[in-house]
């Protein structure tokens, strides 16, 4: 937890998911293939939402609760360990 300041102004303190589970906004979805991953962490560096979780051994996981499906991780991945595909429509699983 960040230290709280007494000044009354527009200061925001970090919490998980202040806007709710923004993963529901997703149209496209990143899919991770851990066999291809070389642990370069480019996806972790570039993800604008902090939705790539970095493990202790530098392997990664995608947090689908907050991933909005922008596809930056797939674009940045040099070994195509992350690919992007259309999200299944909710409630209409084939």
């Amino acid at each position, binding site marked *: 937890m*960040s230290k709280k300041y007494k*000044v*009354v102004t*527009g*200061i*925001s*303190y*970090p919490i998980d998911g202040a806007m709710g589970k923004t993963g529901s906004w997703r149209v496209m979805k990143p899919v991770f293939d851990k066999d291809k991953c070389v642990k370069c962490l480019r996806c972790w560096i570039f993800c604008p939402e902090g939705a790539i979780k970095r493990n202790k051994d530098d392997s990664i996981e995608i947090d689908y609760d907050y991933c909005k499906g922008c596809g930056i991780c797939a674009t940045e991945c040099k070994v195509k360990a992350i690919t992007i595909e259309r999200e299944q429509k909710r409630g209409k699983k084939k």
Partner: protein
Amino acid sequence: MKNDNVMIDTGNYIAAKAAVMARPEVVAAYPITPQTTLVEGIANYVKSGEYKGEYICVESEHSAMSACIGSSAAGSRTFTATSSHGLLLMHEMLHWAALARLPIIMCNINRVIGPGWNIWADENDGIAQRDTGWIQFYCSSNQEIFDTVIQSFKIAENSKILLPIMINYNAFILSHTSMPAIIPDQKEIDDFLPKFSAKWKLDVKNPITHGNIIGTKYYEKIRRAMQDAQENALKIIPEVAKDWKKSFNRFHGDLFEKYKCEDAEYILISMGAIGAESKAAINNLRKEGLKVGLARLRVLRPFPNDEVIKLSKKADLIVIDRNISVGNQGAVFTEVKGALYNKSDAKVTGFIAGLGGKDVTYKDIENICKKTIKGKTKDNNWYGFEGEK
């Protein structure tokens, strides 16, 4: 005190000296006439090694204020300076600095707004920024500029205030006119003005953001807190002026500088360079037996409503404005009348004078007072307008 130096120089170079002696960690500024020699002055101190902070070269005044907001938000003491059109270009970021409660200090050299391109003294640039939340001083001598710059850091950084401060002084009449000013030792300044300790800051070790989306009820709290801070400044500005007097034996007034007001039947209210010139006029009027006093307004925001009411208890008021809120009247005139509403029966007479840098001499000020005393005035008057009597 015996080691004090007397520096004979222009308002801008003396302001530069004061700014550097306050030890800001960051100065970000863009040159504009008539402020240019102030930022040149600081650049000279960079070259000589006397100023050791960051001096950021930016591409506009909007960027200058943005850089100041960034540096102040990162917890650094910050100074800048501008004038007229430069100040107007900053307008959006002036609101930002005040709403984010950042104690940035800025000199604004009051200059005409164009078109009708003109670089002389006129206070409409500062007046146009009245509602940004900045505290506003108006100075009338180079010594007062020096003293006010140092005092402003202490006022702005007070945890009960935390608002940016704009120190205004008239173009050329002060900015480019040499006058002596006593410069204390650096150690004395350091004793008066302790190191800046930010009351909130952007810090990677303690991650926060500022300026995010915010709901209506929280927004109202931010505005209310700014208003409370401005009201606190009505008490803290005089306290700091008193401390300064104790340390340096100099006093330029607090919210007002009062001159021969005790027995006055008429009190003249004016600001800046006209305020200084008014003293000579008062001396002459007194020789003629006319009981006129001077209350030179030093602080436009927060506006000292209670002080104005006190002035009106025994005297009628005469207000000279080197500005006009077009479509209404002089800004100080309307503020003074607002203070007195339902509180006083004093008559208030307003004059617009000296727009576009037109000279307002002590003779003019004497005429203004005599006209008012004779009752030959309307509520709101244009003094010395070409072709009008």
